[in-house]
């Protein structure tokens, strides 16, 4: 069946900011969809608030709305664009929920918009648990016993037949937010209440827990002629009870006989038909009782998902792309398989390797949270590894994670723990369980016992046992006994050079040389969807230790781009965006692009993006092997964040040509002493600073500079263990923590510029000329990590004189560092003086935001410069000065971590970002807040509770709010100040002053906006319940007076005029 003629213009809703549970996999799927639908001749309208995505690049869709994803805003877009169709299944849960809301409110009907792929009815059948349960029962399958509650009373009835342990899941939340397992009534009550609060529909599902059963997922595709195929069965290493996003997962399924697998396949096909997903992909989860094979259906996602991205990367079958084609009328047999070219997409991929996906956690960022894994997702990213055996893939996955672990060695855990403690650890659902499993084998625990404790399938356990056995042999073998046979076996098991070198107490380079002398080198095999049955035309490669190599490098001019690895807080989609742009730019100038990355969620690891793709860990060993095979003309390290940057110097030492800014310049910017000298030479200004190796020395420096101070460890990322201290008492613990975090490296102590304005500048330089990309003013004061602070481009409160000087300084620094490519500088402005805080001669987190704000693809230009072009040749010689305002706002994972504080500081905590654009700053800021989920109220009660130094400014803000019709509520000190200034304000008790207090007010829904700033540990502690309650109740709040100023401007702007929408393409005209 060819494509439908009745479809002309399609609206695609993206998934918005990166949050836990909704990562950049939806940029991968959405980009595929936009590209293929455009190719097919449809007009594509896209809405997504996330500027760091490839899909929001102006050339990907015909009309791109970087606007908040809410039903109200999307309605405005529909009204303006009048699409005839809406594809709701590509933007994750956000996209799906928004589409459902638009369908239910009648908007789609009003404007004549059809839902493609899945009808409202089908979506509801899959998403509403009671409906889903009934359908599953009707087709002869089973689900765990369960019930749906809208109140505590109903929940009490349900638990009678469900029994403990019970899983509580709020409906319609992302990544299982609010999901929990309750073992007793007390926990049950707590989780039910929390879940009801969180669910947009005040609905929780209470379900019999099948924790400990085996977990499987099937990716299913269906076309409109009812052809159904299974793309890939995935088996979880971790048993049921841990969210699949937090589980190590393996493709294909390993321990199912064909009889059981076909039974599951039949079930999946029955389900997709019964739910009625008309076309496209769905993900269906199953639980299997390891004792008797009993099968339960757990859930179905009637849309592309994290798992479908994984399955696409694991098999080479592009689910989102094909789902899009199916949605517009094609059938599976009409779509060719991109990789074989000769066979159709209507088949089931078969693979001849093993894939391991491993989640990446950042618990170190949230030290006060419970680290136990549950049914609510907590990981922030993932790495995928491919090997010919599970053991090889497992080892590759470990080193892909970049958590400084290179094996299952016991040195990574407290191996002194007693046997009883070890058993306890094995029972706990911890993220690093596998190291304890390995340790258990070392302590001679049996597979049976470890299975009883962990419920990890014995097949996986025995594979780990194999690794431990070989590890023992490695540890008793001297280097000269590592002959080629033994070394080959060790490498086939996936052991890294780095680990082996450590065991042998030699350098990695020495070990590498020994290995190469023995001729033990990896070969590269192709991911081809078909187990080599047909010839593959797409060089999508992975390394393994076998005999035949399929890499077949070309002799074209070529450049390797090193990607960013798994997403984590501090290094996310922004860097993948830059890598993808590098690849696009190379294509434009006829240079072969070779991508190296191990993150399955990304656009960079789409086999379509680069000429060649190596799905490999980003370690020295793995990158060197590729470089030796490909012999590229250059390697780009400045786009993938810290991951490739760390490799720059060792790669260069090994003779690899790093193109763009030299590793020496990068090192100069990172090395405090060298950098200080440079700044001095250029006659610029930095905050006073010092470096200490002992506490006494640190104290001396502190007294010399004077408080407040910024204390931070060296050699860490994303502001780990950074602290602002105001007195000697807190100074001591901060210094001690910093020493600990940096592994006893020196601690850096900087003068902290209190209440300074922070600025970010992104610029591009070809070695001779510097062009400013954008200057951003942070909304939050200096001291809040730049990744966490909202910012505006152009600045709103900085004088022309200061701006000019900032640009002059940027030029000086870029030229002095001989930058070829991008440079990012952070400045602080205090009392009209400019201080340099940090210089990064590489792509920064803000590159995609700036590129979208000014309409110039900076990363692409930088790539071309690295390949030899000049800015002159590229025609980018003058700064773009947009007339509109672009505001970036950060998005935080606080909701996923109960009990942690939401105050911002020098350590980055945000997972993603959104952008608001408008001709008016107030509206742009308002849009950024709506997009980030902090929709601002237009009336109601505003709570003011601010620190003394903010009181004067608070008076002014309260006056404006009052004039706009808000009622002002304030705590004692603030209230007094307001009343003294003739602002009517109602007094509310602080927590410590009795009841009902401010928190009661918030819980009772009597507060609509909170302005709360604090100074000093006491006040921070006292006000914590205010912030946390506000968060849990989803009430917008700001924690600095600067942010409050922006909020007031935004409310005022929205009072003046309604929010309107405009495609980004129009801003660039």
């Amino acid at each position, binding site marked *: 069946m060819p494509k439908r003629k009745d479809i002309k213009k399609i609206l695609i809703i993206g998934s918005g900011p990166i949050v836990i549970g909704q990562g950049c996999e939806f940029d991968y799927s959405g980009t595929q969809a936009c590209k293929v639908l455009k190719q097919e001749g449809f007009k594509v309208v896209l809405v997504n608030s996330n500027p760091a995505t490839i899909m929001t690049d102006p050339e990907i869709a015909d009309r791109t709305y970087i606007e908040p994803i809410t039903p109200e805003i999307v309605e405005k877009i529909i009204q303006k664009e009048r699409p005839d169709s809406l594809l709701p299944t590509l933007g994750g849960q956000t996209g799906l929920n928004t589409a459902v809301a638009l369908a239910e409110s009648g908007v789609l009907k009003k404007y004549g918009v059809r839902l493609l792929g899945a009808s409202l009815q089908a979506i509801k059948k899959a998403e509403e648990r009671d409906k889903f349960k009934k359908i599953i029962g009707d087709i002869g399958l089973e689900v765990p016993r369960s019930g749906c509650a809208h109140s505590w009373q109903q929940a009490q009835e349900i638990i009678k037949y469900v029994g403990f342990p019970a899983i509580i899941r709020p409906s319609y939340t992302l990544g299982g937010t609010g999901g929990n397992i309750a073992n007793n009534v007390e926990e049950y009550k707590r989780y039910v209440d929390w879940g009801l609060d969180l669910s947009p529909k005040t609905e929780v599902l209470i379900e019999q827990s099948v924790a400990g059963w085996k977990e499987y997922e099937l990716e299913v595709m269906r076309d409109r002629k009812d052809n159904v195929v299974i793309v890939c069965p995935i088996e979880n290493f971790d048993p049921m009870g841990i969210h699949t996003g937090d589980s190590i997962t393996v493709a294909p*399924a390993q321990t199912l*006989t064909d009889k059981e697998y076909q039974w599951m396949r039949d079930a999946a096909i029955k389900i997709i038909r019964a739910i009625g997903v008309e076309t496209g992909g769905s993900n269906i989860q199953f639980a299997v009782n390891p*004792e008797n094979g009993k099968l339960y259906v757990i859930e179905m996602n009637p849309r592309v998902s994290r798992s479908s991205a994984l399955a696409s990367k694991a098999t080479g079958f592009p689910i989102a792309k094909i789902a899009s084609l199916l949605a517009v009328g094609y059938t*599976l*047999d009409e779509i060719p398989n991109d990789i074989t070219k000769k066979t159709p997409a209507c088949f089931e991929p078969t*693979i001849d390797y093993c894939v391991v996906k491993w989640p990446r956690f950042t618990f170190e960022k949230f030290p006060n949270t419970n680290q136990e894994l549950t049914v609510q997702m907590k990981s922030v990213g993932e790495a995928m590894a491919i090997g010919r*055996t599970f053991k090889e893939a497992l080892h590759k996955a470990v080193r892909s994670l970049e958590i400084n672990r290179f094996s299952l060695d016991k040195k990574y855990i407290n191996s002194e723990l007693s046997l009883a403690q070890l058993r306890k650890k094995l029972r706990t659902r911890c993220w690093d369980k596998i190291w304890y499993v390995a340790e258990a084998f070392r302590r001679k625990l049996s597979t049976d016992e470890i299975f009883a404790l962990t419920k990890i399938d014995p097949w996986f356990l025995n594979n780990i046992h194999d690794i431990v056995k070989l590890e023992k042999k490695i540890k008793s073998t001297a280097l000269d006994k590592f002959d080629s046979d033994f070394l080959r076996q060790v490498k086939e098991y996936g052991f890294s050079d780095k680990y082996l070198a450590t065991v042998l107490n030699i350098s990695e380079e020495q070990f590498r040389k020994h290995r190469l002398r023995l001729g033990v080198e990896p070969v590269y095999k192709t991911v081809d969807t078909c*187990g080599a049955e*047909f010839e593959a035309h797409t060089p999508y490669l992975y390394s393994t230790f076998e*005999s035949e190599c399929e890499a077949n490098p070309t002799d074209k001019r070529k450049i390797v781009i090193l990607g960013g690895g798994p997403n984590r807080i501090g290094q996310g989609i922004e860097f993948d965006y830059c890598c993808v742009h590098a690849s696009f730019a190379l294509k434009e100038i006829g240079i072969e692009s070779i991508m190296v990355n191990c993150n399955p969620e990304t656009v960079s690891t789409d086999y379509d993006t680069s000429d060649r793709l190596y799905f490999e860990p980003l370690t020295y060993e793995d990158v060197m092997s590729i470089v030796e095979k490909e012999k590229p003309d250059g390697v780009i390290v400045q786009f993938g964040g810290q991951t490739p940057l760390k490799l720059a110097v060792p790669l260069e030492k090994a003779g690899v040509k790093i193109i763009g800014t030299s590793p020496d310049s990068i090192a100069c910017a990172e090395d405090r002493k060298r950098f200080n000298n440079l700044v001095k030479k250029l006659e610029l200004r930095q905050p006073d600073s010092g470096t200490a190796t002992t506490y006494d020395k640190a104290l001396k420096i502190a007294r010399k500079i004077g408080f407040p101070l910024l204390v931070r460890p060296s050699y860490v990322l994303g502001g780990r263990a950074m602290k602002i201290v105001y007195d000697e008492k807190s100074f001591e613990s901060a210094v001690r923590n910093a020493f600990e975090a940096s592994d006893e490296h020196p601690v850096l102590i900087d003068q902290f510029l209190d209440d300074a304005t922070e600025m970010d500048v992104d610029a591009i330089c070809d070695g001779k000329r510097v062009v400013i990309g954008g200057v951003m003013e942070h909304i939050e004061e200096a001291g809040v990590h730049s990744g966490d602070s909202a910012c505006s481009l152009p600045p709103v409160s900085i004088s022309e004189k200061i701006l000019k000087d900032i640009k002059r300084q940027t030029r000086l620094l870029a030229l002095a560092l001989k930058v070829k490519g991008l440079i990012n500088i952070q400045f602080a402005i205090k009392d009209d003086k400019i201080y340099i805080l940090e210089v990064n001669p590489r792509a920064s987190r803000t590159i995609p935001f700036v590129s979208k704000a000014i309409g110039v693809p900076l990363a692409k230009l930088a790539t071309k410069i690295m390949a030899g072009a000049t800015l002159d040749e590229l025609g980018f010689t003058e700064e773009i000065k947009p007339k509109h305002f672009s505001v970036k706002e950060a998005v935080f994972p606080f909701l996923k971590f109960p009990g942690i504080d939401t105050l911002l500081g020098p350590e980055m905590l945000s997972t993603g970002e959104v952008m608001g654009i408008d001709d008016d700053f107030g509206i742009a800021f308002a849009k950024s807040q709506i997009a980030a989920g902090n929709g601002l109220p237009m009336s109601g009660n505003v709570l003011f509770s601010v620190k003394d130094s903010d009181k004067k400014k608070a008076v002014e803000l309260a006056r404006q709010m009052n004039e706009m019709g808000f009622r002002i509520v304030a705590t004692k000190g603030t209230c007094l100040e307001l009343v003294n200034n003739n602002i009517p304000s109602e007094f509310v008790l602080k927590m410590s002053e009795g009841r009902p207090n401010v928190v009661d007010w918030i819980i009772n829904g009597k507060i609509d906006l909170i302005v709360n700033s604090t100074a000093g540990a006491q006040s921070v502690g006292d006000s914590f319940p205010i912030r946390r309650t506000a968060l849990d109740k989803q009430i917008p709040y700001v924690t600095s007076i600067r942010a409050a100023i922006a909020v007031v401007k935004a409310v005022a702007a929205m009072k003046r005029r309604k929010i309107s929408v405009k495609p980004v393409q129009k801003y660039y005209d």
Partner: protein
Amino acid sequence: MKAILLLEDGMVFEGNSFGAEGQKCGEVVFNTSMTGYQEILTDPSYNEQIITMTYPLIGNYGTNSEDSESRKSFVSGFIVKENCPYPSNWRSGISLGEYLQKNNVVGLEGIDTRKLVKHIRTKGAMRGIISSTELNINKLKEKLRDYPGLVGRDIVKDVTAGKTYSWNDGVVNVLTGSEWKTEKKYKVVTFDFGIKHNILRLLCSHGCEVQVVPAATSAKEVLRLKPDGVFLSNGPGDPAPLGYAIETVQNLLGKLPIFGICLGHQILGLALGGQTYKLKFGHRGANHPVKNLLTGAVEITSQNHGFCVDVDSLKGKGIEVTHVNLNDNTNEGIISKKLSAFSVQYHPEASPGPHDSQYLFEQFIKLMN
């Protein structure tokens, strides 16, 4: 212990031995199914073949007493990347290695199976010898030289039933233990050219009283049993030399409804006056898309064949092509409405593989109605 695979073009793969020790010649082929190795090992159609599994990790769930497709394994050798000595599954009995030992099948593991598969894909399925007892290449070469290969030989006689018997077991759901039972209304004479048990089970579960007869049974003997229909089974090797079976089918055509699978399909094709030819490396796997030309629907099918019916040779013989393989457009099914006979090249009985095509058994029942 070492083991070797030597191909007729001289290529050698050296790995480790598992399963039984010994040496055997056969045609070297590959199968792309990721599950179902026990069913594959016991499918008599693999007689005289050395099977390479493309999925590298085999043996993970062991073997059990329910999943065998015939009385024993007829394969000449079994090659995997990594054999699993510690199977894990609630139904698992003995490990794959032990199973091969018991069935006297020589196993080879630890070779670059993908390299072997690509070689076969490019050069075609070829003769080979697998050995764990003799590792001298020249001696193996000599042995291999004497091995005739499959073309033009009747190897059905090695696997077919020795005498007529009746089959009474239906399909059993391994998860629930319940048997799929239907009242027996149709008497079906089933030719055993190397039949898989799941065909028998499905016929039984669809209401057939199944009489299994040896391959060389004559049409007269069949008619004497007064069946409602005749089933032609799958089986190993080249269909062309099976003159006796082709003749029998010719004598039955038009007298009784006929349904054939795999080798049975090829025999029907030959009986209808067509020809068969050898495919370069065959179809063996559980993921081949087959289009039903009558409905337009696509089935994901289980496949195991090295020979194929030449559709052009059937032109003008009153035959309708019903199924085609979407990967390479080869023939997958034919029907002669006039003669009430139809057949498919692939395996609707699955085992291993998807269940998409079971409707063909219902079609056979309807034809007998």
